[in-house]
């Protein structure tokens, strides 16, 4: 969506609060700034539009053009617009997911931005933005994954947050006996199944094995991976997941938990705003860390980092860099990640985590209870092509667990081509 932001009365209050951020950029910018964003869900959309508005207030002579593209469609379009019709700033994801564009020379090396002392607070995420010893973008948010569950249903059935896989299964059985499904999921766009695999595999085989598998250093048809699928199969055989999940996007799978037909969802914290919007307040919605399966491996978490990049073909790189600095500034980070905005975690150590139950719990979990490591996500840790084939296999497994041999063979075949 293209919007030209002009002064608006509502924005003035925010500007007053942001003046310190503005002065950090030194001088007012002029010219153009073209931004392509994938923040198309309602809450992120409002955040993106708000950021552009505030940045525009700081630089009244700057003509900002914002295009918001559907998040799923964006993934297929990014290659296109990085080569033609290039914007100055574009959203993307950290780690391996940005490698194809780095390798193709489509992202600008912005190590000089990172050299700025203002970015010292971002040290913890620097690794995820670094490939070949250089930085290729800045993060703007990250978020924990875990199980969001209906507290009221757990209370009604007398269940506690599970700490082990056995407890998880016995809870699930109780939920099933009450006529509900344990987990809702929508696998139409495949990646949601990747979350389940990440957790089951990290809990079964540990973070190191998982990340090596994603990097193509292990066979899919191995005892370790088979053990992961065997655990998953136990849940599938119980009937733990909602029916017909292949027909739904994740958004379309939310009504099941809202209506109480399903008791929980494994998801990133971005699921909280729409669930709250749909009427699940904190007395009904709660969070727990995915329980331990193999006691011998340390807990590890998925915490994907979302990012901004400057395409190498950008026309207004200086303006773009100023915008990136604005995005990661401590004040802005606090503001956009607050519970009433993105509802996620700030990447700047000098920002404060909003006083929100889920954010506090997630921040706590990631900083002190994830000794094994922190993964990005299935489709960000594996190369894009492998992720596609892999997630298709995971979706097929969820529907046809008996096809496991075929699926694993297919993944190994694809892997031998992709990781060559």
């Amino acid at each position: 969506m293209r919007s030209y932001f002009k002064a608006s009365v509502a924005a003035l209050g925010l500007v007053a609060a942001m003046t310190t951020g503005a002065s950090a950029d030194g001088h007012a910018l002029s010219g153009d700034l073209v931004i392509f964003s994938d923040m198309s869900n309602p809450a992120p959309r409002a955040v993106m539009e708000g950021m552009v508005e505030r940045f525009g207030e700081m630089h009244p002579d700057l003509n900002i053009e914002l295009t918001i593209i559907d998040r799923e469609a964006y993934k297929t379009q990014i290659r296109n617009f990085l080569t033609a019709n290039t914007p100055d700033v574009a959203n993307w994801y950290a780690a391996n997911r940005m490698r194809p564009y780095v390798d193709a020379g489509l992202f600008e090396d912005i190590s000089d931005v990172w050299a700025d002392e203002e970015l010292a607070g971002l040290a913890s995420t620097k690794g995820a933005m670094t490939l070949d010893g250089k930085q290729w973008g800045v993060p703007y948010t990250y978020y924990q994954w875990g199980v969001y569950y209906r507290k009221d249903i757990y209370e009604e059935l007398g269940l506690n947050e599970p700490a082990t896989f056995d407890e998880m299964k016995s809870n699930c059985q109780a939920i099933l006996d009450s006529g509900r499904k344990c987990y809702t999921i929508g696998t139409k766009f495949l990646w949601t199944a990747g979350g389940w695999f990440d957790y089951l595999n990290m809990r079964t085989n540990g973070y190191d094995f998982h990340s090596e598998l994603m990097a193509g250093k292990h066979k899919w048809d191995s005892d370790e991976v088979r053990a992961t699928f065997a655990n998953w199969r136990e849940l599938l055989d119980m009937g733990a997941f909602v029916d017909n999940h292949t027909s739904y996007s994740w958004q379309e799978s939310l009504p099941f938990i809202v209506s109480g037909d399903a008791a929980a969802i494994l998801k990133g914290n971005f699921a909280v705003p729409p669930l709250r919007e749909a009427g699940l307040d904190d007395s009904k919605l709660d969070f727990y860390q995915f329980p331990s399966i193999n006691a011998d491996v340390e807990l590890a978490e998925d915490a994907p980092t979302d990012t901004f990049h400057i395409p190498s073909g950008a026309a207004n790189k200086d303006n773009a860099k100023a915008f990136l600095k604005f995005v990661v500034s401590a004040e802005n980070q606090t503001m956009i990640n607050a519970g009433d905005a993105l509802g996620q975690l700030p990447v700047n150590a000098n920002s404060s985590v909003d006083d929100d139950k889920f954010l506090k719990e997630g921040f706590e979990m990631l900083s002190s209870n994830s000794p094994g490591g922190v993964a990005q996500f299935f489709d960000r840790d594996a190369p894009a092509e492998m992720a596609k084939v892999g997630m298709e296999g995971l979706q097929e497994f969820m529907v046809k667990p008996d096809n496991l041999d075929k699926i694993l063979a297919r993944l190994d075949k694809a892997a031998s081509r992709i990781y060559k």
Partner: protein
Amino acid sequence: MFPTPIEKSSPAAQLGYKILLPASLIVWLLPLIAVAVFSIKPDSDFTSGNYWGFPSSFEGLTNYGLVFGSDMPRYMLNSVLITVPTVIGCIILSSMTGFALGVYKFKANIWVFFMFVAGNFVPFQILMVPVRDLTLDLGLYNTIPGLVLFHIAFQTGFCTLFMRNFIRALPFELIEAARVEGISEVRIFWYVIMPLMKPALAALAVLIFTFIWNDYFWAVVLTQGVESQPVTAGITSFNAQFRAAYHLMSAGSIVAALPPVAMFFLMQKHFIAGLTLGAVK
């Protein structure tokens, strides 16, 4: 006439026919009726599970208001800006090619004609990568002219087939007579043939309008933003914004589908004449 006119059959059969007709129409249009009903329902009907019941309140104005307050009008405008020039371009090019192939006898005639016909039937996918590259090289990627140029070129195949067959059926004596009078070929085209082609031009215009308006594949391949995407591609962005908001998605779909539908009902005669050219000898 076949089948036997119904008025010649028994009263019972006549009555049966009169019931069957509307009933089968309703079944036939059921999916569409459902969407129309969706589009005037309030949000709350969906959360409360009242998908198919009577709308608990009439929210048509709210829903359609939201559609028109979004990017949809811009997408519609893009569609118009893509469709109209394409129609004009196709008609100009193909009345010329149709004239050349329909009037003149020369050796290569049938092969040129077959080239147009065959090209008209190729799968889009074989053109996709080269056409995208070409459009990028011309600097027309993600622009309306980029899409228009391709559409004109591709539709020329079908339009030539159409025009040539139409001109073939015109009385050739007219042209002969004009030539005897010493009228130049260009003037024959303009003053003799063109006036006779009016019905064909109208039919073609309506048909191409519908084809191009409904194009999705090339819209996805050659454009990507709200500044150039037609409504078929825009509706997917609209839907992404309102995912699972069925009332709004329905209203958006109806708005997107409306122009060709209106065109069809207004220009029905031409439309059907265009589609069925060749269906009878």
